[in-house]
């Protein structure tokens, strides 16, 4: 049981895909203009991640090794299409806010990375737990960045939900640049600097962006596909 719990929490803190492994930067920056959008993106990716991890761990003996990456991509694309339709049917506002980034979950390197690194080597239960943990870590990071950007940029928190908190009375003037593109880069950069400071530079192994020390390198190179 302890081992299973470890698999689940691994993705949330120790190997948080966004804040520690620095994967999936595109959706991280693009969908966090508001906390609720970050949360929605996170949940959508979590569902895809759990389903694709389950399917791939079940199919791992059938899929020939040489064409495994295209097979993984087809499995992932199938689940992304399912999620896309569910979001379109039940959460139209979210569909509008996420726009093209919803189908782009297909090329999110976290999902392909977990398929290659975990699901193709482990059993179905562990793979689903790993998917859930990584997905929760992704969701948590996106919601956190989204919250910072929304509070600083719009003066609200979770607007568009029943739990909306209006802080415009306390924060005199919201700086709307935080909800725009530059704010995304800025908040993400500061967040990583903060983690470096708190853990004295130990948590984040990757010192530079690039493929050399990317944790996904194995699946990337084999995939002939990158992040």
């Amino acid at each position, binding site marked *: 049981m302890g081992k299973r719990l470890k698999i689940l929490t691994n993705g949330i803190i120790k190997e948080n895909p966004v804040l520690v492994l*620095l994967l999936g*930067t*595109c959706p991280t*920056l*693009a969908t966090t203009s508001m906390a609720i959008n970050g949360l929605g993106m996170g949940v959508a990716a979590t569902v895809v991640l759990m389903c694709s991890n389950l399917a791939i761990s079940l199919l791992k003996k059938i899929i020939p090794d040489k064409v495994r990456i*295209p097979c993984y*991509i*087809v499995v992932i*694309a*199938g689940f*992304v*299409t399912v999620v*896309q*339709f569910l979001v379109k049917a039940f959460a139209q506002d979210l569909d509008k806010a996420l*726009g*093209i980034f919803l*189908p*782009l979950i*297909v*090329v*999110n*390197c976290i999902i*392909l990375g977990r398929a290659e690194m975990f699901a193709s080597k482990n059993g179905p239960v562990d793979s689903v737990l790993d998917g859930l943990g990584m997905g929760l870590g992704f969701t948590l990071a996106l919601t956190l960045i989204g919250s910072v950007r929304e509070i600083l940029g719009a003066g609200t928190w979770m607007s568009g939900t029943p739990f909306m908190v209006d802080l415009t009375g306390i924060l005199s003037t919201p700086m709307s*640049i935080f909800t*725009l*593109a*530059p*704010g*995304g*880069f*800025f908040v*993400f*950069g*500061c967040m*990583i*600097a*903060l983690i*470096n*400071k708190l853990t004295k*530079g130990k948590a*984040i192994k*990757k*010192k*530079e*962006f*690039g*493929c050399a020390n990317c944790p996904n390198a194995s699946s*990337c*190179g084999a*995939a*002939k*596909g*990158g*992040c």
Partner: protein
Amino acid sequence: MKEMMIILFSAILTENFILAKFMGICPFLGVSKKLDSAVGMSVAVTFVMAMATAVTWPIYTYLLVPNGLDYLQTVVFILVIAALVQLVEIILKKYVPALHKSLGIYLPLITTNCAVLGVTMLNISKELNFAESMVNAVGAGLGFLLAMVLFCGVRQRLEDIDTPECFKGIPITLIAASIVSVSFMGFGGLVEGLFK
């Protein structure tokens, strides 16, 4: 013609893929350290974007839509792009080895680059016709090139400055990207004004 110019220049400046739309952030931050690799990567991306659009647009319009299969867009597009990149690589290797030598190493990296899949999907969702889609794809690629080259210059300066310990490496790169992104916001409204 006017519409084409508007599509081209908005794709390059106001709707820059990297700095306004956040697509292709990984190559932007990963390969922008040296000018030659930044240019090589961007040229390869532009090339693949144009090729991918030239293939996916007809497939969507003449194959998927008439058969009521447009919901397969995501699955079909990613497979077509992956196969296309492999094919281009093989052809270049055989017939244009010089070009393969300079672009070849970047081609595999961009199969699942979200900018390439993104541009083909945007063309469909914006309901552009074939010519407009091609212009949009080339514009997006040129915008990618512009952002990469500019940011490369910024990053070479970053190497020499004295950054606080915790900001070294990735954080300062992101903050520099944020400032470059601010400068691109200045183009807002410019394109519509130019071609009015």
